[in-house]
């Protein structure tokens, strides 16, 4: 009898051991070129180092799936790449596991993580990996004059053709105001008032009927390539990659860019917490962030990664630093997405935006 028990215990331990040796975590991100950059810079080396596997899933942002899974008591996702306002909101609603910046490894130069990460890139439940930006881009072969300012995007007379916009008030309203002459620094003050929202929507009204709405980050380059639109807002990295890897004749206009963070969050009750934690540590390390920057033009959230940022992975001549949202030349008229404003006003602005769309 005792022998049987020992045997059982041994085989159980073996089974658990096997499970430990080959954890599989589900990492959810925004798909397309962005997910590819993460697969190359984070997933593959991490899998090689630990023997674990990463199942990669795509989504279009938002908290709905996380909320649904947590409330269903059946969480499938281990890590999710989210925007800042969603990270804050999810944390407040108890949908996310707390993450401690002090658990993160020090930078390659030995700086403690809390100092190595850029200010404002870590929170109670979220650690940032990159800085990205919403910009607008156009197909240079189809434009006679070159647009250069955010106002040009809203100027149908000088720059005729359809526009692509994300089906979401976020970034659209800010851009509309900047195009209408509001200085970047004042945008959220203006948008905080009833008249400000009206003004933004009135500006957008000038484009209505000429808009193709997109939802997934992979769509805008496709819309440009298919000729469905002549200009579209987009995530800067997606346009960069279409140019760098597929030789598309797209140009980015940085004037009026709205930059934001992408952060890792762990849904509450994630099935493989330990492995997921290990993945966060690995993927937000100095080298991994710098490596990611060789696949897509998003800026690393660590200071120590900046000096390691080199050129595009298969084109040594293509220096990445000038294509980052944080490059000084691109920052002349830039706006940081105000997460608190959006956490506060998202519901109501969504409602108003949808009502405007339906009219």
């Amino acid at each position, binding site marked *: 009898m005792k022998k049987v028990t020992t045997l059982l215990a041994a085989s159980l331990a073996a089974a658990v051991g096997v499970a430990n040796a080959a954890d599989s975590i*589900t990492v959810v991100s925004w*798909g*397309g070129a962005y997910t590819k950059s993460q697969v190359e810079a984070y997933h593959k080396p991490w899998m090689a180092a630990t023997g674990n596997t990463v*199942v990669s*899933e*795509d989504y*279009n942002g938002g908290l709905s799936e996380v909320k*649904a*899974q947590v*409330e*269903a*008591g*059946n969480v*499938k996702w281990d890590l999710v790449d989210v925007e800042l306002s969603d990270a804050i909101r999810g944390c407040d609603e108890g949908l996310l596991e707390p993450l401690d910046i002090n658990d993160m490894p020090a930078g390659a130069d030995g700086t403690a993580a809390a100092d190595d990460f850029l200010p404002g890139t870590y929170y109670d439940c979220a650690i940032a990996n990159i800085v990205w930006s919403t910009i607008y881009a156009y197909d240079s072969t189809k434009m006679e004059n070159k647009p250069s300012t955010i106002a040009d995007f809203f100027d149908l007379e000088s720059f005729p053709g359809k526009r692509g916009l994300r089906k979401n008030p976020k970034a659209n309203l800010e851009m509309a105001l900047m195009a209408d002459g509001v200085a970047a620094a004042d945008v959220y003050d203006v948008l905080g008032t009833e008249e400000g929202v009206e003004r933004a929507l009135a500006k957008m009204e000038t484009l209505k009927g000429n808009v193709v709405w997109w*939802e*997934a980050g*992979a*769509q805008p380059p*496709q819309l440009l390539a298919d000729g469905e639109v002549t200009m579209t807002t987009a995530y800067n990295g997606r346009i960069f990659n279409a140019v760098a890897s597929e030789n598309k004749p797209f140009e980015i206009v940085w004037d009026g860019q709205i930059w934001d963070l992408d952060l890792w969050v762990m849904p509450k009750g994630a099935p493989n917490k330990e492995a997921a934690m290990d993945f966060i540590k690995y993927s937000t390390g100095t080298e991994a962030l710098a490596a990611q920057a060789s696949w897509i033009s998003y800026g690393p959230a660590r200071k120590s990664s900046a000096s390691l940022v080199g050129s595009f992975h298969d084109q040594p001549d293509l220096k990445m630093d000038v294509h980052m949202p944080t490059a000084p030349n691109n920052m002349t008229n830039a706006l940081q997405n105000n997460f608190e404003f959006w956490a506060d006003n998202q519901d109501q602005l969504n409602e108003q935006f949808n009502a405007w769309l339906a009219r």
Partner: protein
Amino acid sequence: MALPAYAGWGERLWYYTFRFLCFLIFVFLISPILIVLPLSFNVEPYFSFTPGMLAGDAEAYSLRWYRDILTNGMANPEATTGWWADVWNNAQWVRSMRNSFFIGIFATIIATAFGTLAAVGLSRSEMPFKKSIMAILISPMIVPLVITAAGTFKAFSLFGLAYTHIGVILAHAILGIPFVIITVTATLVGFDQSLVQAAYSMGASPLRAFFKVQMPLILPGVISGALFAFVTSFDEVVVVIALGSVEQRTIPRQMFSGIREQISPTILAVATILVIISIALLATLELIRRRGERLRGVTPT
């Protein structure tokens, strides 16, 4: 309605105009389905006919999108050994297909078993509250899918059934039930209850009487009900979106996100395969119908 020999020119004109109109409507019905077939062999990643295709150039056609169905998601498409095992385990579309069949078959079994039993009860003349019960049993077909999806998601969550195969199967079984009820009760309309009475009087147990007397006669209805239930599950998206995670992803679910995000001709290739499957189903159904009519002694119309 052949044109009589004495028809005047007005009648003739109307006759041909009407035929032409009907022809156009049939074109409307069938052309989108046919257009998918050649486009799925397009060598270019577009949804339109290239000049090469129109010229009948063999170079303009390829099987690349069909290959993509097999290779997309594979761990190692270039491997020389274990290629098919890799396809079976990892290729996205193949996994979706496995899920679709798994969920569809079990949902069909549940819907058919419960539905046939209930239809037999419903067609008995002694059945109380017949109309109201019928109304309830048909209602899953009427309730908007979004509401069914939301309700089952919320309630199944309480029992840990959300994001499980069982949850999706149960929800799909519900959606299939009305079809089984309708088809089986339709075959029972002409059923002579005295046949069962006769079986009883000769000493058959109710179970034996059902399987030996009633079942063979309603079998065509049961099978076509089962086919309807299967197709309902096989084609359903909204409930899968709500109740399923990536592990329960079915073919229509995969197509839905594909169309929404990055529309590639792979979807057309999948669509072509589905069209072929539906032709096969239609043929099966037609054969069953003919057999059923022969059995019941109804002359085909």
